[in-house]
């Protein structure tokens, strides 16, 4: 029996997986960063989904607090990543991570 919260949680897991795939498979940095954000969203969805404690009760407040914290962290991460990517683009003219060979 699938209720809404389980569905949400599963969707979150799927999002997480898509994010992982994006981070790994796409060479372009922006896609990687987006993938990371998708991953984060997936985690947050699962988190919010598990805060559901049944129709009678209020949702658990703790995951909400945590998710807000998590979003802040994710925003910071995105900012840092974008800054680095810009720098890299400025220096190398490419928005991909250069292949790492022996110097």
């Amino acid at each position: 029996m699938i209720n809404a919260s389980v569905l949400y949680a599963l969707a979150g897991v799927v999002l997480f997986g898509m994010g992982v795939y994006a981070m790994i498979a796409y060479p372009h940095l922006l896609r990687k960063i987006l993938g990371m954000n998708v991953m984060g969203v997936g985690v947050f969805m699962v988190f919010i989904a598990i805060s559901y404690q049944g129709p009678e009760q209020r949702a658990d407040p703790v995951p909400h607090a945590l998710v807000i914290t998590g979003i802040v962290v994710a925003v910071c991460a995105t900012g840092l990543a974008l800054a680095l990517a810009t720098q890299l683009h400025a220096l190398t003219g490419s928005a991909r991570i250069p292949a790492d060979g022996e110097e």
Partner: protein
Amino acid sequence: MFFDAAFWLPLAIMAPLTTALLLFLLPRRSGLLTVIGAAATIATVFLATLLVIQNGAARHTLGGWGAPLGIDLTADGLTVLMLALTAIVGAAITLYAHGYFTHPVHDATARTRYANFWPLWFFLWAALNALFLSGDVFNLYVTLELVSFAAVALTALAGKPAVLAAAMRYLLVGLLGSLFYLMGVVFLYGGFGVLDIAALGAVVTATPALAAAAALITVGLAMKTALFPLHFWLPPAHANATAPVSALLSALVIKGSFYILLRVWLGVLYPLGETIAPYLLMALGAAALLWGSLQAIRQTRLKLLVAYSTVAQIGYLFLLMPLLLAERNNLVALAGVVCFMLAHATAKASAFLSAGAIQLATGDDRLASLRGLMQIMPAPVAAFAMAGVSLVALPPSGGFVAKWFMLDATLASGYWVVALVIVAGGLMAAVYIMRVLAPLFRQVETVEARRVEHVPLSMNLSAFGLAVLAILLSFTGVYVLEILAIGAPWVTEAGL
């Protein structure tokens, strides 16, 4: 109040954090501020350490809120050891960085960029202290990210394209790892409804949620710890960063994620200790040891060699996992792992610092160009040699103590194959360390001495001091064992 360790715990975070903020605001005062900030941090950490050693584990409830919504800082024996380690290595690196970043070989723009080192470093320090003090799994996530951000920014400090790429990769990998970890935390909370490690430890059972959490947390942290085969990001990052940063990354940052792994497995995931998962970690540890050593042996650049040495030595940390987890009170094995962290941190920091000094002075870090340097720069060379002794784990050194505990634990439990791997790792370490040291003894054809840049005393002193510490750690085995027992719920009398 002052004699309560709990009082000092938040201060151990606040002191470097405040310093970092002040450094952002007043970059011109960095000299004075770093000295005061470092002194204050060290003082609080040591007070906290001493008090914990004397009075036992401490817990501080921030703002009086308390779990589940509030944040608790906890300090037991393991915590204070890591705090003290960070303080000591951090102090040495601070001293070193003063000489390194102001060195005349750097041009003006580089020096301006390097000025950012100071706030970032104190931020990292604060984040590390927070990580070690965190008592719940979500806080650990936050601190892990903070550490990661500071570390990435520090890596990027060198400014070259290669290092930016390395930093980028480092960041992405870090995020990937921490999101895996976070997902694991979600499963933990979903399964058991608490986040505090101690509380979790009391309620966990072997459920599917715990299993999923275990897998995600382990993989995420293994990635951040650069366990083979997820280590690919480490060598470029560690090798291309500036020397003080390399030292920080190898000595401390790596230990942060491993510390979480250790904590979570020992405190929360232990019901799964009897599965074969720890054996997988052990196998990966062995592989890391052999693989990393082999790569280190094949390197032709000094800093890459040292970086691969880190890849190899991370393997040691995972080798004892089955011992640690199958019988949670195996204090000897735990002491082996912790001693190894201490020894590796000091020795590897010293190795990176002396390598950095050599690179700074000669402008070159190819192994082949080390020839004849022994007479010209004896201090970094001696420091590297002593650090090398500890990395190879030859007696007398901290590395040896760790190896002793490890061998004792493995042989006592009958894992003699692991013992052989440990020994083989030591021998391979000897080979790559000698690849550095041997050219130093080579005869120089030209009588005329090579021209090298002057290395300031502060750099030599800190590299050398850490190396001496790495040797002197050989006398600390007994104390580490005693301190580890403080406030450790998993330690029973039988384990002692």
